[in-house]
């Protein structure tokens, strides 16, 4: 059966977007589920009806090191920036875009300003989550990896996502510079890097869920 390449390419971008969204949604669900399961297990092991969440989180968390935590934070911010660059830079996907602010788009530091605005917003959300009460430490993104056992290789891989996300941003920026012209390969490659990076960033959650299942 002959494959219609343009049709396949056209359906690749929505499929990738869907995959990215599902990856993140399932990661969030699994993360909460992982912690709930361990919380229950701890109560059983301690022969108690219930263990307080504060004690549970204190016992559960394993600090992963300053540099890794900083790089992981940078990776998450870069992930947000890469998503914004891919979906909000040009109006080919959404009806509104950075190109609508033509003065900014044409200015010398327009791309940097746009990226930093998105990064600032992501940083503000992360800091806001970090201020949540102790009972909701599971929602603190900066402490995400402290609930999981992460190998050095995994740490390196997570840190390397910053580079992959930089390449994704670069490809999206290229799409922006050629707008209103269009480059589908660049779009798909950028999305693929985004999906892979997101997958790596949430890999410890999936790994934990997988091991628990076994």
């Amino acid at each position, binding site marked *: 059966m002959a494959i219609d390449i343009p049709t396949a390419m056209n359906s690749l971008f929505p499929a990738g977007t869907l995959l990215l969204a599902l990856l993140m949604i399932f990661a969030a669900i699994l993360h909460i589920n992982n912690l709930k399961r361990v919380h229950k297990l701890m109560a059983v092991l301690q022969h108690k009806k219930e263990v307080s969440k504060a004690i549970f989180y204190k016992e559960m968390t394993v600090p992963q090191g300053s540099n890794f*935590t900083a790089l992981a934070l940078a990776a998450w911010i870069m992930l947000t920036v890469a998503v914004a660059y891919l979906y909000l830079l040009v109006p080919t996907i959404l009806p509104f875009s950075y190109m609508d602010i033509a003065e900014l788009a044409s200015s010398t530091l327009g791309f940097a300003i746009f990226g930093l605005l998105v990064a600032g917003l992501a940083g503000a959300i992360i800091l806001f989550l970090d201020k949540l009460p102790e009972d909701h430490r599971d929602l603190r993104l900066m402490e995400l990896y402290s609930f999981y056992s992460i190998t050095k290789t995994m740490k390196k891989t997570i840190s390397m996502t910053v580079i992959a996300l930089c390449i994704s941003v670069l490809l999206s920026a290229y799409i922006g510079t050629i707008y209103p012209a269009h480059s589908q390969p660049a779009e798909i490659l950028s999305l693929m890097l985004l999906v892979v990076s997101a997958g790596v960033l949430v890999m410890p959650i999936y790994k934990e869920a997988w091991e628990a299942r076994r």
Partner: protein
Amino acid sequence: MPKWLIIAILALLLVAGLSQAGEVLGGGDSSGGGDSGPSVSTGGGGGGSRQIDIDRLITTVKDGKKSKPAKFEELRTLLWKDPITSEEYEWPTVLMYYKGNNTTVSRNQPLEIITIATNNNPLEMRRMLDLYLEVKNPGSDKYERINSWPEKIQTNEYSEKTNTTLRIWGMLPSFAYLKNVGVVKVRANVSDGVNKWSTASYSGLKPPYYTELVFNVTNSLPAMSDFNVTPSGLVRYNDPIEYKANIADADGDLLNVTLHILDENGVELKNETLNTKPGAVSFKANEYGFFKEADAGKNFTYYYSYDDGIDFISKDPVDALNGPNIRKGPKLSVDKLGFSSTSENYYWWERYGFNVRAKNLNPEEYDVTFTLSTRTGNNEWNTVETKTVRIGPDPVEVNFNDTKPFQVTDAGQTFYYRVKYSEYDQSGKNAMEQTGTRINAKIVPYSIYSPVMFLNLVTMLFLILLGSFFVERKLKKGVESHESASGKAGNKKSKKQESRDKSGGSFAGKVLKMLRRG
């Protein structure tokens, strides 16, 4: 003859008479319609008389009034009943009434002219009064009737207490219709069907009652002000020269305003009259063709004359005013308006060149100012550049090189360009306009390989990394691991730390210190 016989005969006659009357008046039964009302016999002798009802009779009379006026008049004469005359009948008193003290009025001043009638006769003796208003205008020796149909005062409309009634003559609201001013007399003529008399026939009256109203009607003179000629200063003969002024008239008359244009010797060259209501007056030179090319270099003066149909002001202002002063100038011939771009892509950020060719059709040389403007879509014209070029009989290329007329918001739109000049060209216009081309829709003026893009991305990445490290160092989310790990080689690291602290004074040092910790 016995008395009872006489009574019997009279009774028989009465019965016979009633029988006859019944035939004439008809009954409901005989007419065949129970509710058709009284009927009138139209039949002649014999037994077969035909009857019609009173509605038909009225319709017949109405028709007869139109179709046979002579017969109608004859019928009316037959039916005419003289008014009741009695020695006790008293002539009604009819007087003019005016509330104001000041009888000197301007032509357009609103008036309320009233006639008051007093009728002391009992109601059954009163007669309907017909009133006619009469006016004697200035310079006339006879009274003219104002109303062609009489104003009627019915017998039942007098006040029960005072036996008076009045008529306000709305048909004479003012004396605006007068073409001359002076003394105006107003009186009323009265008829009660038998007698005719005038309000002027009374004597010994005191205000506010008058035998006739006497008004001294005056006219308000129109007056002009705010004389002006635009544009001021030296102008070209075909500039939109406009003479402006205001004219006021308290009477609100229709005014004739004449503009007189004089040459340098005070000789009248032209005049134009405008029929206008009070307000702004304007004469546009180009509409009336006041000036021609041959007038270049001449200075003119002007004044106005005007009238309101009664009074005439022959010269206002008394000393003629200056204007316009027409300057000499070239007679431009302009053509070959075009543009060029640094590339065929027509990006908004590119440099564009525009040019136009001009020459003077007359032999002299003049400085002419050329202004280049551009616009996209329906936006306003945007002035790009202005330059003054000396134009003589030889064609001159006017170039606007290396201009940057567009902004990013113009991307994707068709542009238009225009060169405006300080003189008029061969078409009588002072500008030439052309449609350019569609500006490329590309917004970002640099490529991914450009240093600008490199600067953007590197700056962004660096600041994100720096920010992340800064936040982590502040919140110390991974510091416990670091501390536990540092227990083994704590002494070795503490020495290194000391040396780092020494170099951590500057901003760069602090940044490095922040990044090294781990």
